[in-house]
């Protein structure tokens, strides 16, 4: 127990002294996961919108698969990306393995289904409300999509945050494709997982604490967005 309270004390010291290694790790985590979120939204939101307004044969199965992909295990994603990026793999020549880019790619794959599936649900409801009016106005398809994305923006921000929350908290994928290399690919979760076993408890605890704070902040943001959505929609 003594060991633990010492470590806790050291952890807070690290946080409040603004330890350089700590800041670097947090910074990289945010950079990787925010980039993954932006890329996944750029691809996933339009995909969700298209699925929301399209009726085609085989739509059901596509939606079932998409929903199932929301639960992709991060280690499996990590493994698949590893196989593609490793020297022997099809994209090995780019030399991306063990770089932040590899971590971003893995996280994009991990959260893209979440963004697409959740936004599809939201936009389908919105479209049900608008569809007949839009048909009456002969709104072209592209304008329908952008109108749905714009009018659903507050709800869609909660989707983006859900994706970000999943990305920043996952460890399986970033460890495999990043490798937790000091000053290069060490992010919060991989550091916690690996430094704990090496005995660097203060760093692990400090990172764990920051990660918790981020999780709380994301949830608070989602809740306040929900309130905003409600207010704007139903006054």
């Amino acid at each position: 127990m003594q060991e633990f309270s010492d470590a806790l004390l050291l952890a807070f010291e690290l946080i409040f002294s603004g330890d350089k290694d700590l800041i670097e790790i947090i910074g990289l985590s945010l950079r990787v996961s925010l980039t993954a979120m932006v890329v996944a939204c750029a691809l996933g939101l339009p995909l969700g919108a298209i699925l929301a307004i399209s009726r085609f044969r085989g739509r059901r199965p596509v939606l079932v698969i998409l929903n199932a992909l929301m639960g992709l295990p991060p280690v499996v994603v990590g493994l698949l990306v590893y196989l593609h990026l490793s020297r022997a793999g099809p994209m090995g020549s780019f030399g991306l393995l063990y770089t932040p880019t590899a971590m971003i790619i893995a996280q994009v794959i991990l959260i893209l289904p979440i963004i697409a599936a959740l936004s599809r649900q939201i936009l389908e409801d919105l479209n049900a409300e608008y569809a007949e009016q839009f048909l009456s106005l002969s709104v072209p398809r592209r304008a329908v999509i952008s109108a749905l994305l714009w009018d659903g923006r507050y709800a869609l921000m909660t989707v983006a945050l859900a994706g970000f929350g999943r990305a920043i908290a996952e460890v399986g994928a970033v460890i495999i494709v990043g490798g937790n290399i000091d000053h290069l690919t060490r992010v919060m979760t991989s550091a916690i997982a690996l430094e704990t076993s090496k005995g660097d408890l203060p760093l692990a605890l400090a990172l764990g604490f920051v990660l918790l704070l981020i999780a709380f902040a994301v949830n608070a943001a989602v809740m306040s967005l929900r309130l905003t959505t409600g207010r704007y929609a139903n006054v």
Partner: protein
Amino acid sequence: MSKKSSSLPPLSALQTTSLSLEYDGVRYIDDIDLSLEPNRLSVIMGPNGAGKSLFLRLLHGLIIPSAGQVFWNGVPVDDAVRQRQAMVFQRPVLLRRSVAANIDFVLNLNGNRHRCNDILDNIGLLDFANQPARSLSVGEQQRLALARALATEPEVLFLDEPTASLDPASILAIEEIVTQAHKNGTRIIFVTHDIGQAKRLAEEVIFLHQGHLAEHTPAQAFFNAPKSKAAEAYLDGRILL
């Protein structure tokens, strides 16, 4: 550039031939043959469930008939025809945006040069321009929906019981805007089950009953002496099923 194209014949005359609509084997619109002259203010009446809303949707090409056809000046209703028409629904469907943005949305769609502020000023909503559209009262929302429909410069305007749940002042405002649009040459097809409203607006009445066309009569004759038993009972205030 307005979406109205002067090279096309006007759309104001309507003809339906054996128009029918079935869902799951039940006929909700049954073999309606109707011809409407151009430029009348036509009111469609009938009890609840008579098929008024479905009929209006068929005329506007929002739904496809099971049998029969809809012609506007001889042109079968299609995307191009629908584009020159507009519809106001019983419950206004406003975008989750500001009042002004709701008007701008259709102005951008049509590349038309109306000024949003003039339109809002006309309907007395300029002061609310930057407010969320859904924060307006229902009456104001319906006025906005009507102004938005007119901003597309439709040749034909459909209204489906637009005042069914509104207060008298809002009803009056809507009726005045519709009357003005009619004077400006927009062909109006107005659905209502409010007899008073029909008397105020109608130049001719189309009476639907259980999916059938019960009668199509000039307004004065209709209110004096309807030809069909169904309309007679309805005007007498008897419950009509």
